[in-house]
């Protein structure tokens, strides 16, 4: 078995490309993206994605790697962000020679500090107790954020001006594109650092503690200490994400440190897939994209989020990464093409069901929220109809019902085809 003894590389460039290819590709994508999506809205969204990638990866150090379910991870993100905002103001006021690009480190230090303080309390226990303590601490800090107005700024939050800081090589970080590259650079470094963490002795023991904490204690490891260190490091990276958010928005308020924010990061990690390193990256990208797009299109966007989450938990607990990894063996065996036609057929009932569901939700949303003020007339996908008339509801129910029925009928064939291809 050649596990430790790697086969000698054929040539150095090839070896480098194989080892670092994925990172070079990631860097290239990050550099090129704003050249492709040039609109202001796209740029804002991509900045948010970068921040959320760091945040959700830090969360997955707890959930996916160490098996700790936290309901209060926004505490470290938020505290990091608030400290960064204050730091920005102080640095600008006192004309300190600290350039803006270093600011996320201040956020990270804050996240680390509170990771140490709260981690010492909460990581004594694992499982449900840990989850409950994290929830309690999260609520505590969230409510404090409305009381301690000096630090948190109450409802309005604290603002700052990033351009008031020392310029570095003439870059003022006024335009969003400059902020994008700052975020992208930090995001890149943080992804590599967090990935490297998974390849260290402690990173591996985190997995061991997740798998079987008892046995970990019998091979010399204090599970409490493993959880504690992982928690501190996760707090550090969450703080960096918060610092990036502070730079990006030039504003931090109670929402950033709330339980809702903790919920969003859980959602991202879970939808992306906690079982693989790249899962939370995909989750952060998708959820951010949906957040931005759906909230533009529909007032019921939170509902859609809830539905996506429930569907994921029920049908794909491995998240998007899990789905991809499920198909990887088929791809390697070259049998993936054989299942694709079945997926194509399945897409029909899925589309029908989805259309029915959307119609149902939108009609209900219109009828319940908007009809009283705007009247029953509404439009959806180019069709005009009245939300209080029977036809749209009948169509919706029919689409949904037919989609479900057809889907269930086709499902066994799909499963059989998949099993056949995977054999």
């Amino acid at each position: 078995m050649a596990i430790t003894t790697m086969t000698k590389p054929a040539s150095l460039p090839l070896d480098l490309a194989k080892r670092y290819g994925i990172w070079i590709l990631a860097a290239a994508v990050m550099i090129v993206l704003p050249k492709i999506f040039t609109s202001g809205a796209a740029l804002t969204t991509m900045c948010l994605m970068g921040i959320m990638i760091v945040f959700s990866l830090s969360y997955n150090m707890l959930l996916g790697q160490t098996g700790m379910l936290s309901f209060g991870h926004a505490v470290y993100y938020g505290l990091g962000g608030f400290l960064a905002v204050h730091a920005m103001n102080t640095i600008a006021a006192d004309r300190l020679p600290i350039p803006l690009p270093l600011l996320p480190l201040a956020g990270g230090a804050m996240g680390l500090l509170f990771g140490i303080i709260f981690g010492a309390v909460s990581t004594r226990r694992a499982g449900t107790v840990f989850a409950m303590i994290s929830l309690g601490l999260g609520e505590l800090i969230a409510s404090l954020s409305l009381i301690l107005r000096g630090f948190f700024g109450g409802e309005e939050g604290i603002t700052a001006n990033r351009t008031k800081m020392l310029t570095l090589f003439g870059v003022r970080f006024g335009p969003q594109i400059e902020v994008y590259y700052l975020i992208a650079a930090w995001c890149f470094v943080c992804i590599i650092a967090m990935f490297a963490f998974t390849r260290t002795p402690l990173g591996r023991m985190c997995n061991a503690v997740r798998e079987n904490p008892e046995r970990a204690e019998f091979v010399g490891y204090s599970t409490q200490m493993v959880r504690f260190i992982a928690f501190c490091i996760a707090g550090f990276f969450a703080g960096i994400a918060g610092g990036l958010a502070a730079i990006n928005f030039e504003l931090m308020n109670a929402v950033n440190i709330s339980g809702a924010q903790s919920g969003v990061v859980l959602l991202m990690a879970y939808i992306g897939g906690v079982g693989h390193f790249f899962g939370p990256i995909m989750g952060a990208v998708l959820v951010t994209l949906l957040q931005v797009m759906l909230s533009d299109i529909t007032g019921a966007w939170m509902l859609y989020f809830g539905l996506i989450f429930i569907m994921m938990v029920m049908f794909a607990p491995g998240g998007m990464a899990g789905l991809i990894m499920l198909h990887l063996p088929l791809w390697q065996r070259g049998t993936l093409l054989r299942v694709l036609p079945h997926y194509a057929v399945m897409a029909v009932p899925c589309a029908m069901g989805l259309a029915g569901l959307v119609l149902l939700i939108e009609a209900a949303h219109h009828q319940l929220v908007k009809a009283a003020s705007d009247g029953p007339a509404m439009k959806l996908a180019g069709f005009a109809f009245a939300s209080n008339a029977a036809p749209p509801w009948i169509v919706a129910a029919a689409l949904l019902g037919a989609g479900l029925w057809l889907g269930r009928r086709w499902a066994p064939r799909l499963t059989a085809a998949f099993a056949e291809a995977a054999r």
Partner: protein
Amino acid sequence: MTALALDDLHKSFGATPIIRGVSLEVAKGERHAIIGPNGAGKSTLFHLISGRFPLSSGRISLNGEDITGLKPYEINRRGLSRSFQVTNIFPRLAVFENLRCAVLWQMGYRYSFWHNIRKATDANDRAEAVLQQIGLAERAMMPAGLLTYAEQRALEIGITIAGGAEVVMLDEPTAGMSRSETAHFVALIRKVTEGRTLIMVEHDMGVVFDLADRISVLVYGQIIACDTPVKIRSNKAVQEAYLGQALETEH
């Protein structure tokens, strides 16, 4: 030199006494077997020694050092490693990873997040060597939970011995194995515990009489006899309490 000394150990679960005054000294390099009927408290005794359960009273010392009341990981770091009667591995980690996790602390990597594990050559080599020893080289990359029962038992022992502990405790290592697997395992145990202290619970009398230097007979929470295999075989009290039935069921 005494490797492990137990001094009047007691353990009760609620009001029920399970271990009722066990004293025992095991010398360095000795192979010591603990036998006794089901429910006698053999596994409980292992749990007490390895720190899984707290004692009700008594004192345990390892290499002359008091380890009473220490946590399992503290006891492990002092050189005592144990296996479990019910397989206790890292099911979703690869077999190789299971073994590597078992050597990291003893190799001095502790809580390091500044070493690249691929470059931790000593840990990798040690894990690889144990992998070969327990005959699972072909399964190195498979999740441990997918191994067959016998393979999981092998891994259980591999994890226990991988760290290179001075004192190795095995709780029914060959339980549920076929004759040939058992023979293979006894040879393996003999080999890997060469020069170390071994304490094992075992039901297979063939294995016990073959492997052990001394045997303790635990019945209802007390050691009723502790002697060489030959003398244990001819001990009246032992035959009445346990060995009679055990030898009969063997045939």
